[in-house]
Every structure is written in structure tokens, then in C-alpha cells.
């Protein structure tokens, strides 16, 4: 009880600081320096219509590579944690209710469609909302669906790891290519920027975003698979 009061008290203090933020906040009426630059230069420099994508993949590409690495790390650590000691063997039969026929058949139909949707989302990241992360999540949801319909299904960790690593490596390599053939690390202009609004435009962005999509998809899948393969304790 005392603990709750103390927590409330300090949260009250924090709340006061938040109120100060609210009171001092005045919405911008014009884009600030940075926002204006992106609005004016993205189309011409990067060739992407989705400015958020341009920022994520190129201008702040270093963040994104870090972000992808966060997932990579998480997947690796979850793997390390859960493979330690008691993966009591896949031989152990888990008693789980059989999913219905309908669901199984449905999933066989749905999975390719979902995968396709995911691919669409990350390939078109530079044109429409969405991109590698969203697409990757969609790809992973296909895996999730398969897991739900058949919990005993064995996924190849090796395959997931290879997809993850290769796409990550390619991401880095493309970044380095930017260093030699364009203005700097992760510069997308190693490929022609193309015509604004077409699929093959915005230089390396579709490539990078596809790689991110694959990588993120693989990483999410790896986490899901690892977690689902743990034993009930």
C-alpha cells in the first residue's frame, strides 16, 4: 500500500512535468528546417514519393540499420535463451488439440496470399504507406498462421537464419556501395532514381526495403518459432 502511494506520488511529480510539456507546447504552423528540407528535396534527391520511407531508408538509414539489428539481436538472444538446456526434444509429443480441417486447408490457401501481400507492401514502400517493417510483420503472420494450424510443424531454423543473415549482409553491402558509388554510406543513389512514382524508382530504396522486409520477417518468424517450440513447464 505504501508502495502504491509512493509510486503515485512520484508519478504525480512526473505528471506535473508532463503538464509543463503540454502547456509549453505550441503546434507548428510551418514545417521546421528539417521537415521543409525533406518536403522539398526528397522527390528530387531520393526519388521516393513516400517521404517517411525516404527518411527511414536513406536519410536516417543508420537508425534503420540499427533497428534491424535490434530485431536481429532479439532473435539471437531469444534463441540463445530458449535453446539453453531444456528444449526437451522435438520427439516429445505435445498434446494439443488438432486444429480443424477447415483451418488447415484455409491456411494452405491463405499463406501464399499473405506472403504475397507482405512482399507487395515492402516492395512498394517508397510509393505507398508501408514498407519493410510492416511487410515483414505480414510475412511473419503467415508463419504464425502455419504455427497456429499445426503447432508441431517443424520450421527450419537454419533456413530462417540464412534468410536473415543474407538479407542483413546485403543491406550492409548496399550501404557500403553507397560509400563508393554515391554520396555516402546508405546513399540510395547507387541505382538511378528513375521516374518519380514508378515502381523502379528511388534508387536502391525498393531493394533495401525488400531486404529489410525479408530480414524482419525472418526475425519475427524466428522469435515466434523459438517461443512456440518451448515446452510447457
Amino acid at each position, binding site marked *: 500500500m505504501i508502495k502504491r502511494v509512493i509510486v503515485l506520488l512520484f508519478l504525480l511529480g512526473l505528471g506535473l512535468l508532463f503538464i509543463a*510539456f503540454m502547456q509549453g507546447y505550441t503546434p507548428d504552423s510551418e514545417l521546421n528546417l*528539417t521537415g521543409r528540407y525533406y518536403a522539398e528535396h526528397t522527390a528530387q534527391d531520393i526519388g521516393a514519393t513516400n517521404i517517411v520511407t525516404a527518411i527511414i531508408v536513406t536519410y536516417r538509414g543508420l537508425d534503420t540499420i540499427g533497428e534491424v539489428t535490434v530485431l536481429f539481436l532479439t532473435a539471437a*538472444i531469444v534463441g540463445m535463451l530458449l535453446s539453453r538446456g531444456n528444449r526437451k526434444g522435438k520427439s516429445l509429443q505435445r498434446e494439443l488439440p488438432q486444429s480443424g480441417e477447415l483451418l488447415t486447408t484455409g491456411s494452405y490457401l491463405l499463406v501464399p496470399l499473405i506472403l504475397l501481400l507482405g512482399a507487395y507492401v515492402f516492395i512498394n514502400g517508397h510509393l505507398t504507406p508501408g514498407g519493410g517493417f510492416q511487410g515483414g510483420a505480414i510475412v511473419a503472420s503467415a508463419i504464425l498462421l502455419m504455427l497456429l494450424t499445426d503447432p508441431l510443424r517443424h520450421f527450419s531454423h537454419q533456413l530462417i537464419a540464412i534468410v536473415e543473415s543474407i538479407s542483413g549482409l546485403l543491406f550492409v553491402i548496399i550501404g557500403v556501395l553507397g560509400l563508393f558509388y554515391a554520396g555516402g554510406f546508405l546513399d540510395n543513389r547507387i541505382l538511378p532514381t528513375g521516374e518519380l512514382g514508378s515502381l523502379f524508382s528511388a534508387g536502391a530504396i525498393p531493394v533495401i526495403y525488400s531486404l529489410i522486409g525479408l530480414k524482419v520477417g525472418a526475425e519475427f518468424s524466428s522469435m515466434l518459432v523459438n517461443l512456440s517450440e518451448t515446452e510447457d513447464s
Partner: protein
Amino acid sequence: MVNVIFIIVIGLGAAFLLGLLRENWRNAAYALTIGSLVSMAWIAARWLLFFAVEGGTTVEVFTAGTEPPFAINLRMGIAEAVLLLVVIFSGLLSAVYMSKSLFRLGGRAMSVLLVFIMALCGIILTRDIFNLFVFFELAVIATAGLLLISENKQALSAGFKYLIISQLVSVFLLIGIIFTYHVSGSLNIDTIAGVSLDTMKGIGSLAFFFMLIAVLTEAKPFPANGWALDIYESAHPAFSAMFSAAMAGSAAVYAVDKLLLIGGQQWLPVVTAIGLLSFVAANLLALAQTNDRRTLGYSSVGQVGLILAVIGQRDILGDNYLFIAGGILLSHAVAKAGLYWISGLIGQRNLTDWAVLRRHPMLILSFVSFIAMLSGLPPFPSFYAKWDLVMILATENRLWILAFILLGSLLEASYLFRWFGYILKRETPRQEKNEVENKSPLLSLVPHKLLVIFSALATSWGLAYLWGELSAYDNLFYALPLLFALSFLLLEWVSVWIKNTLAIAGMVAYFVISYPLYDPLQIIFAAIFLLGGAVILLASYHVHGRRIGFYPSAMLMFAGLAMLVVAEDSFHFFAAWEFLTIGSYFMILRGKNSEPHALSYIIFSLGGAFLILTGFALAAQGVVLFNLGSLAHVAAPIAPWVFLLLAIGFMTKTAAIGLHIWLPGAHAEAETDVSPMVSGILLKAGLFGLMVLLMNMGKQQLYGIELTYVMLWIGALTAFLGNLMAVFQEDAKRLLAYSSIGQMGYALFGLALMNQLGWLMALMFVINHYIYKSMLFLSVGGVAKRTGTRDMYKMGGLIAMMPLSFIAVLIGIIAVSGVPPLSGFGGRWIFYNAILSSEYRLPMMLIFISGPIAFLYLFRLIHTIFLGQLKDDHRQIKEAPFWIMLPQMIYVAALMVFAVVPGLLLRHVDAYLSPFFAESAARGGLNWQGLTITSDYGYWSPIPIMVIIAIIFALLFAWLVFVNRKAQKVKQFNIVYSAERPFRPETTHFAWNFFAPYRKAMGFLIQPFVTRFWETLTELLHTIADLFRRFYTGNGQTYAIQLLAFVVVVYLFRVEF
């Protein structure tokens, strides 16, 4: 030059590549990991070379082909290059160190390690606040992953606690970032810093506060750091090394440094306050720790706090900022990593279990180097850094900050040196037979781990050299005595004979070369330090074998003494002072039961040294090379304070009453040949300091109190009480030790008289005390060696067995007690003259009383040890070894000579001193004519006195022989106790508690008030530490609440500023 971005590219690329390798290709994976770390290190090193040697300037690296602030940019400058090297090297060495664990866990663990290092590099390089957030999150997650390498099961919960904290941190950081972006329109640190300060008011400063506090949290400030301690305690030691050296000690503090560019000056006090609080509190709480890794964790928190405090002071540090911050940062990084690596060799977690290191000199050397680095002792970078820092703080009048820094340093040194005492003195833990299977061995000396530790050792000395080169002063490594002392480290494998001969030859040779450079005062001290030391070293020939550790320590002490005498400026004086302190500490610690005494010695000495440091800093007022002579010109308001600080500092070394409690134990428990060194020689260093001080600063008044008058009283009291305490000792060496306190009191008194005679008398004491105290310690030591005890009541009648020792003691006590004809009398004579010529009658009384008291205890040395009945177990005893007797005989001769021709030395000194005491010299100077000395009150002519005394002695002796010609020898018989059982063996000896009546009368005077005071203080500190560390409940949630409270409270205080 390779683009800096490749450091990140290599780290990431290799991490991804590791995923491609098959699970069982662990060799390849490991090779890839090491290879990429090496290449990252190479890039960083190449850049460092570019900046440091080729004079390159800071480079900006743009990404995405767009200029900042529109894309993320990195910056590479000299500071970044150094920090990158620290980070990458700690990673590389840790990877080597934990190769076994990495192999066990496979490629995934290696890629986590690589990402961790890469992320820390990113934190250091990036100039973008959001990018900073991303790299911090990476580091956090990688930390959680690397914790799993630990074999300690608790690491899992520590990791979870950390994740909870990092959730809070990321909430704060994101809020701070987005509002900072809102007010400034940029995410680039330099752009935001360039925005006018007005926009950073209001929510701008609030937003900055959130960012700052979030990043500060990663530097583990007290009290929001319980989670960090849990990590330190439970993680794999190699990871703790990285976590401390690279993450907290380099990356996080540098992030704070970068962020402060945005916040500007007004945030510096906040960082200072947080840093200082962490520094002092963590070191205080560490006192109550028993777990080694947790102790190191506390120390780490403290050190990072110190770095933060330095960052917070950068407004006044100017060009020295990098030198100071870098010195402390690198010292911490190398030392802490090294200590964690050592902890990985040791199988059990209690501090005392480190005693297993004892048999491994190289590991001991490593440990010593690391703790010296942490404590800021010369010649390590932290010493130069702290010196400069203190100088600047004193000049800028930021005395509170200075006081807290020194307090924290003292606390830190005390538990580190206590730990060192454990290593050398505690029992080596035994492995239980039945536990062998399931427990790790007590000490596992794995070659590659040792390699890692020794490379840290090499780095520490390399940095010491480098910082010496970079400093504004001469490199301490160019000091001949120090090099000589250090070279004994390389000679550890040869026998005592060779080392001892080399040492003696070196000391004598150094005196001979330097002779022309000394002034008369310096000659006296140099002669005692070097020639006197050489004479005592003769006694060291009696030891056989290699005596590992003795010569480097002894030579370090003598090097310090030799450097002290010739030091012209405060820096070199202080460095020499520290050297002699450390050297003597190691020597004292060698004694069998000396652990607690050596500890109190080093704590008092370091405390005294800090006072001296502060005194010099106040006096210098920013002058880089502050000549000791300039002490005379220190301006009025601070001069008395300078005097006070320096005087107390020096009096710690002379063991003035109140500060004396370290001395008896330290001197008594030391080895036979060490006792005379630390008593006969080392104490004079304090007197030398006092002389330098008084000579330059003379009389000072503080609040109308004449400070020299206070010193006079202290001297008198010290003489009186020291002697009185000596009277009631049963332990012969302790008796001598207390007697030293008394003798130093005389010397102090003489100096404080501030007239020529007083000084002359003090110098007489310097010489006399050296001779007779060294001699007595040697002879008593010899007796103790033969009888196996130092308790006098267990001895008796040794005159027949050890006649030479008897003679030495007899001559010694005649000299000490100041009766004619020996030089002690000369001292007294000058002394009484001096007293009579000054007006202080009251303290004078005390001094007069001390004389007879001294006789009481000196009498016991002869009476109890050498006269009376011989003990049964002592019938076969032989005279003390030749090498112990030899110096004693030299001293006997020297005493005779000095008694006959005291003027030989003193007249030059007298002439040298007279200009300093022009007015008193006019009144009551001495007149040196041939062998006769004349004063206003009479004259002293040694030869006639000698002759007269000899005649009296001969007559008395003849009369005694005549009277006792019919005396019979009596056989020993048992004493029968009527109706009383002697439960304690000592009560059966008549000489036990010999002065019981006096004790009844005057015992109240020697109640150990002072000892009790210091003990209570120590206990209080420990109790506080033990109480407050309970604050870290171990519950992750509580830690999170503490962090929340920390944020709110810091903001409230911030409003106050």
C-alpha cells in the same frame, strides 16, 4: 585513411555473417569475431595516429550523401578515437578472455558481442540524438544477451531488472528527443546546440532534462543504480569488464558530454552534483561489501561518477579538459577491466578468497598497479589528472567539489588497500575435498586469460608513461631513482645477496653524485635517507632466498625520499611524497600481523597527502610549476590555510598526537630490518616537509591564533603522551614505536619554537633519532628473532647470551635519554638552550617532564630483557646474526663520533639557518669554536664531559666490584605463590606490568581516546554503509521506482539552481 563508418560496417557485417556459419563451425565463427574486432581496432588506432601524431583535425562523416542536420552524421576526433580504442580493445580482450564461453554458446553469442561493441562505437561516433537512442537500445539489448554468458544463475534476473530500467529510460529519452526536436527543428546535436538559447528555455530545457537524465542513467548514477550493481555481481567477469570500462566508463559518459553541448553551461552543476554524489556514496557503500565483483561494481559506479563530475567542471578546465577527463577515464577503464579479468581467475567470491593470488607475483603486481591507478597514485595517468584537477578547482575556489573528490578518493583507497591486505595476509582458502567436482577451482591460471590481464598491466604502465609525456611537468619516468626502483621489478628472480648489494651500491652512488647539488639542510636529510638507508640495508643480508617484493618496495620508498629532498616545485615534491608513502606501505605490510596496521598507515598517509595536495593547490593559484620557495609569497587570506593544510599533512607522517594511531602497530609489526627503516628514516620525511614549510611560510595567524604556537603545544603533548604510553608497553618493539612518537614530538616542538636553536635541536634530533632508533630496533629485532617473542616479560638475563646486543641497547638508551656523554645529551643541551631562549614556559614544562618518563621505559629495555634471570628455553640462544649486528656496531661508533664532534655537521647547518632567523640569532646564537659550543646560557665542550663521565663511571664500577666481591651466584628456583594461582603466564614474571603504580596514577592520560575516536569513526562509516546499501533491495521494481524518484528529485533540485 579508412572511413570511420567501417567500424560500424565491420561490426554489423560480421555479426550478420556469423548467422550464415553452421552451428558447429565454431572455430571459424570465433576467428571471424576476433578478426573483425582486430580490424575495428586497427581503424580506430590508425585514426588516433592521424590525430595525435600526424596532426590531423576532426573529421565529419556524412551518411546518405546528405549533409547534417538532414541526415545522420558521425564525428571522428581525438577524443572519439581514444574512446573507440578503449571500447574495441576491451571487447577484443574480453572476447579472448571468454573464448571458452563463446565457444560453448556458439555464433549467436559472438554476434551479440560484436553488436554490443559496434553499438558502443556508434554511441561515441554519432552526432544525432535519435541515433544515439537507437545505439543505446542496441547496447541495452546486447547487454541483456551477454549476461546469459555468465555461469551465475542470477544473471538472468539481473538482466530482467536492467530491461525494466531500460524501458523507463527509453520512455524518458523518447519524450526528451521529440520535444527537443519540436523546439529546435533538428535532431543533430551541433545544430541544436547552435540554436539560440532562448528556444531552449521552457519546454526546451525540460526536454533537454529528460534526455540528459535518461543518458545519465546509463552512467549508473547513485542512487538509481541498483540494477547495475546486480549486473556487475552476476555477469561474466569479462562482460563486467566491458560493461564498466566501455559502456559506462566510455560510451555513456561521452554521450553525456555530447548532450551537454545542447544544454550549455547551466546544466554543468547538475552533472557535477550527480557525479560527486555517486562518487562519494558508492565508495562509502563499498566499504561494507564482501563480494568481490560487487565491490568492483561499486568502485565502478564511483569512478564513473568522478568522470561525470569532471565533465561537469569542464567550464573551468579549459585546455586541460581532455587531459584530466582522459586520465581518469583511461585509468578507470584499464584498471577496472583488469580487476574484473583477475576476478575471473578466482573461484570464490569473497574478497578474502583473493588470498589465492599470493603466490603469483605477476598477478600481485597487476593488482597493485590497478588499485594504484584507481586511487590516483603516481605514476599513473589518474595521478596527473587528479593533480591538475585539484589545482584548477583550488584556483577557481570550488573547494567543496575538491573536498568531496578527495573524500571519495580516500574512501575508495581504503577499501582497495584493505583488499590488498587480504590478498597478502589472509589465509588461503582450502578446497574441500568433496566439493572438488562441483566447484570451480580456487585459482585457474588459464594462459589466455593471463595474457589478457598482463596486456592490461602493460597498458597501464604504457599509459603512465604517455601521461607523463603529455603532462606539463617532467615525466616521472625520467626520475633516476624511480627507474632504479622499478628496475628491481625485473630483478625479482635473483637472490637477496645480489639485489641487496645493488641496492646499497645504488643508494650510495646516488648520494655521491648528487652531493654537490645539496645545500647543508638537504645534505643532512639526504645522508640519513640514502646513506642511513644503506647502513640499515646491511642488515637485510641476513635474509636468504629471493625475498620477493621487498626490494621494489624498499627502493620505491628510498626513491621517493631521494626525490623529496631535491624536489623544487610542489608537483615533484608531492609525487615523491606519494612514492615514499606507497613504498613504505608495501614494506610495512610485509610484517606477519601487520595487515590492520598497514591499512591504517596507508589511510592516514593518503589522507595526509590529500591535505598536502590541497594546500599546494591553494598556494599555487594556477601556477603550473609552483616553486616551493614561493610558499613564502602566498598572499594573506589563504596563507594560513595553506599552512594549516600542509602542516597537518606533514604531521600525519610524523605521527603527531591525534594522528599517531597508525604508528605503533605499523612500526612494531614490521620485519626486523623494516622497522628501523620506517622509524629511523621514514619519519624524517615528515620533519623535512615541516622544515620546508616553516622555513618558507614562517609564522602564520588564523583567527588571531598563532599557528606555530599550536604546533608547539602539539609537539609538547606528543612528546609527553608518546613517552607516557611507551612506559606501559610490554612489547619491546611497540615500546620503541611509542618512544618514536615522543621523539618526534620533541622535534616538532623544536621546529615550532621558530628560532635558530630550536631548529638546530630539531636537526640534532633528526640525526640522533635516526641513529639510536635504528640501532634499538635492530637489536630488539635481533633479540626477538632469537627468542621468538617480542614480549619483554618472556625474556630476561640475555646479557650473557647476546652481549653485543646488550651493548648496543645500553649505548642506545644512554643516547636516547639524553644523559651525558653521548650525543643525546648534546641534543638536550641545545634543546634547553632553545627553550630558555623563548618565552613559552608552559609547554616547556611538559617537555621537561617527558625526559624522566623516557628514562622509565628505556630502563626496562635493559632491565627486563638483558638482566634478571634467564628463561629455561633461552639457554641455547645465540647472539643475533652478524648482519643484524653489523649496522648496530656502526651506529655505536657513529654515536661516539657524533658525541665528540657534534659541530662537524651542525655548524654548517647553523650557518645555513641563521639568515632565516636573523632576529633571534642576534639574541641567542651559538658560537662554534673548535669542539666547544657556546650559548648565552653556558657552553658545551664534549671532550671534557666525556672524560669526566668516564672517570665517574670507572670509579663507580670499581666501587661496585669491590662491594660485591663476595656476592654469590644463586640458582634459579621456583616461585611459590601463596594461595594464588597464576592463571595467566605473564603474571608470574616480575617485570610484567612493571609500572603498575604509575599506571594507577597517570593511566587516565593514556586512555586510548584518540584510538577510540578513530575506531568509532570507522565503525560509524561502516554502519552507515551497511545500512544504506540495504536500499538496494534487489527487487527490480524497487530499482525502477528509485529511478523515477531520482528523475523527479533531480528536477526539483535543478529548479533550485
